[in-house]
């Protein structure tokens, strides 16, 4: 039991350290250069709320570090609560979760073809001129 508790604590510490020190940026196509969203507006967009700009949210698959940071710093939810929320939305016929991508490259390729899409990725990734940052965590 003690070993189990220690393992849990270690996992928890690892998770919070990760989320605290690393950052992500929320990006879209350069066509939308100039728009800025608040953290609350991004949360609303990624939780299926109505967005005035008609933007399409894109996520990374569960397990990605950037997703964990996004969940923690933007949504303010754990992965488990995010999954519960989408199960509720999906099976009550209200909403669908954002489309998920395996890699940052695939996500960027999608935004290149679909300029209204909005995604997030690790802050340290260098972006080409095709994309603009609309929000950065600190």
């Amino acid at each position, binding site marked *: 039991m003690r070993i189990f508790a220690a393992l849990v604590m270690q996992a928890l510490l690892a998770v919070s350290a990760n989320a605290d020190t690393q950052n992500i940026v929320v990006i879209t196509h350069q066509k939308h250069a100039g728009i800025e969203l608040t953290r609350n*507006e991004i949360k*609303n967009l990624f939780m299926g709320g*109505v967005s005035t700009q008609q933007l399409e949210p894109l996520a990374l698959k569960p397990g990605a570090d950037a997703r964990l940071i996004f969940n923690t710093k933007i949504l*303010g*939810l754990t992965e*488990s609560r995010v999954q*519960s929320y989408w199960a509720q939305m999906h*099976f009550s016929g209200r909403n669908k979760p954002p489309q998920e991508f395996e890699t940052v490259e695939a996500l960027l390729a999608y935004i290149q073809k679909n300029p209204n899409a909005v995604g997030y990725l690790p802050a340290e990734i260098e972006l080409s001129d095709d994309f603009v940052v609309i929000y950065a965590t600190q």
Partner: protein
Amino acid sequence: MQRLKLVLAGILFASSTTIAADDSNNFDVSGFARVVAGYLDESKASYEGYDDSLSLSEQSLLGVQAEYSFNEQLSVAAQLLAHSGDSRDSGVEWLYLRYEPSPNWRFKLGRLRTPIFQYSDILDVGFAYPWITPPQQIYSAYLFSNYEGATATYRQYYSGFNFDFEVFLGMFDETENYAGLIVPVKADPLAGFVFKSRHDAVQLHASYIRTNDFSTVVAEFDQFANILRSAGFQESADSLALKGRVEVMLGGLNYDSVDYFASTEWMRISSDVLLVPKTDSFYVTVGANLAPFQVHFTYASSSAEYDTIENEVPLGINPQLDALHFQYDTFIDNLPLDTLDSATVGVRYDLNSSVALKADVSWLDTKPDERGFFVINDASFDREAVLYQIAVEWVF
């Protein structure tokens, strides 16, 4: 309504047969399943079907949702449920046509789940909530689980606040289990609204549902009312009426953050139907997220009472009337009341993004002489019991 169901089923099957040739992105099949084991440490009563032998069949279920989109605005969806419990029917839970002309508006038509509680429209999807069994003081007193009709939702986002306003109108016509009696229940028309607002980590929820035409049939009530009526006691006979108004009001508040979560719902049922007592219920849940674990504590309470009805039948005139007087009192006194206090401690472990394991322990306590959602086999039952449950929740 039967015709509407057939039309919707027709559309769904017609569209599903064309998927092979069509773009398969338009067709989506998903589902949920749960296996729940429970044990009640009590031999004199059972609770939600659980007694003092381990049971896997009370709440275990499998649900499949099929959805076909004709285009971005129009889709049809069905949810089929296979349930192992005796108190629940298996079959079509949802079957509706959805039309979303803009991101702000959503319309649904068909057989729908009543959305008035926070989890009422996904009660079967255990993966979506922390407990194994949501607080029964609210969720078991759930009068109209489905309806056939239409709903319109308007959604808006304004300066950090997300608003959702839904109105619905329809009818309910099912066989229900009230006070241990299996009776046909009809509510036609049934109308209500749901208001939700979310601001960052806080969500507010208020809803109202009403029918002026609730009716049910219980032979014992009718027979006794007839005896009273023929003896000339009209008011006492009318007090046993099983037709009338039923309304449910609900308020809820939720807080969700990375570290903690809390939720509360409060409900009031009022009615002029004897079989539906005045009920006030609430629960408060607080929990901590220790990813991948969640631990939570819930306190829930309900109190129910019947309107005091004066016994019209006079005493001391003759033995027949005396007998009728006592018979009326006994009849009213024997109506069951679901007053219950409970405390639940639970833990949830998310194995991955689609499977969760849960364990809950609930301490249940009701007043002497009251039923408190128990089915009592032995009158000497002390009205206290502990329910142990473990569950696997799955979405796919």
